[in-house]
């Protein structure tokens, strides 16, 4: 069953068409990778789904509901959470506060109750503190809870990023290059984390990634984009054999390698 359907999505920035007539879907519980060369429109796609940009035309349907152009915070409330390309945590806050802030949707009391610290607000705080400890524990960073986030080592930073993303109990997580800048061992651990949120928390995952080795290992299905258009879709094994992909994507990589040699 499709949890997210993207229909004929197009985004133009002036004369540039970043996403062109894109149609695909994600099934519940799937890990879908979106790959493609730089400038293929993958990040724009994420921005469109989470409404950081409005599409020029086309529709985005989440659990049967049209969410095209809905404000970002409402989309988050429906259950779509994204991460960003550069590691995104609240850098100058301690780890515990990072996750507490991200638990915003679990506070039931309104701002006035919060200001006057009403019994309901107090109960919310207790519940969120419990959730926060649980999340930090799950991602293995509870010993850093008083540390300022920017002081965390890279691997733990990714864990914190995931803890922030999982704070809202999303149904669908959009991960923007979750394995970038990692060595093989860190990548393995991050892949475990991604599988974990799917298997244990039941989160559907769409990820954009350049690390082909990781993509081939982790994804159930792959959508390949080039110049804003979908050029292929299928299981990892099929994608590896697809000529259009090899030409557009791997061909380009050879070019890159050539440049490196020269």
């Amino acid at each position, binding site marked *: 069953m499709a949890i997210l359907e993207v229909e004929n999505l197009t985004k133009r920035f002036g004369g540039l068409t970043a996403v062109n007539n894109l149609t695909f879907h994600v099934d519940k519980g799937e890990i879908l990778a979106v790959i493609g060369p730089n400038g293929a429109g993958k990040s*724009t796609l994420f921005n469109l789904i989470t409404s950081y940009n409005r599409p020029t035309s086309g529709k985005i349907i989440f659990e049967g509901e049209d969410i095209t152009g809905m404000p*970002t915070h409402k989309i988050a409330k429906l259950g779509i959470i994204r991460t960003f390309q550069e590691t995104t945590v609240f850098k100058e*806050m301690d780890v515990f506060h990072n996750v507490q802030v991200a638990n915003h949707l679990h506070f039931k009391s309104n701002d006035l109750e919060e*200001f006057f610290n009403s019994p309901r*607000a107090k109960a919310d705080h207790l519940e969120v503190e419990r959730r926060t400890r649980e999340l930090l524990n799950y991602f293995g960073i509870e010993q850093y809870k008083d540390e*300022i986030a920017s002081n965390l080592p890279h691997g733990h930073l990714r864990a914190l990023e995931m803890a*922030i993303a999982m704070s809202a109990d999303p149904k669908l997580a959009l991960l923007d290059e979750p394995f970038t800048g990692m060595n093989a061992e860190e990548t393995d651990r991050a892949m475990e984390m991604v599988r974990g949120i799917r298997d244990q928390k039941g989160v559907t995952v769409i990820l954009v990634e350049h690390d082909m080795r990781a993509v081939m290992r982790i994804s159930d299905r792959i959508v390949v984009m080039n110049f804003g258009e979908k050029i292929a879709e299928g299981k990892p094994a099929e994608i590896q054999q697809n000529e259009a992909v090899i030409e557009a994507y791997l061909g380009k990589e050879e070019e890159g390698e050539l440049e490196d040699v020269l």
Partner: protein
Amino acid sequence: MNQKNYARIVLVATLLFIYLIVLPIIFRNQRYLLNIVITASLLSCASLGVWITFSIGRINIGQGAFAGIGGYTTAILIMKAGFSFWQSFLLAGLLAALIGFLFGLVILRLKGVYFAMLTLSLTETFRLIFLNAEGLTNGGNGIMGIPRPGALSIAGITIIPNFGRSNIFFYYLSATILIIVFLAVWRLYKSRIGWIFKAIRISEDLTRSCGINIVKYRIMAYSICCFLGGIAGSLFTVFYQNIFPASFQVNDSVYFMLYCFLGGLDYLAGPILGAFVLTGAFEVLRFIQKYQEGIYACIMIALMLWLPNGLMSLNLGKVFGKRKEKELETTEADKLLKSYNPDSGRKSLKKEG
């Protein structure tokens, strides 16, 4: 209770003792000196508002406009509509907050210098409005002879009796209001709303993706700021018993911001410290007052260079201040100054796709 908390309580108690008991006793017959402390208290109120907008990552040079709105609202309601001070005081704050809310809907989309320039021009715009709306404001002649606050009674019970022109009364009025405002802002910052403001300053995009309605919280912060500007302007007006278009100008807006910088953007007590230190210093050094603006400019430059986290980051900060400051690499002021083009970092480093 640990030692730091103990030291903090002693410090706060001492400051309150000096502020509420020692100063009024020493200055009780020196009207002029008492007025200076009153002025500093009212400036602190308005600056605390500016500090709140700093806390969501916006440089606000428009507080003068809202002090003006508060002041004129009070003057017009008292002189032309026959309201009591207490009614018009509240309405002044609310009207300033409402106008701030409406402007905020539009201008809070901007960041950095763009927001700063717009707020700066707001001050000038409102000065011109006050100058030209002669029917309401008497234009350049201003409104004079505004009476001091009368008695306050609610449901027939007199809560505050009529003190006439007593300055000691006004001293305690301004002190009470400053303390209430400080406690309210302090509570706001200890609460989840304070975390959200901070989160918005660090990354609006990430805050949005957590399901937080940043538009709402940005406007909340700005409206509170304008409310504080409005009530400070209202008190100034009944304190000086007059108001002119020139009462609150661009200069004043800049000073409100300077107090925050001087005290320290990281500290809630920063704007109060800044306002008292600068106001006090200029009264002590009255012979240099004609160079005031030049000196303010030099202080501002010196702060940016040598003390970007303000006076509170000196020793005092150890008692009063926040945790773990040593671990922060960049200062609040640094970040705000760099934030004038917030997207440049992300977009230039990584191409889309």
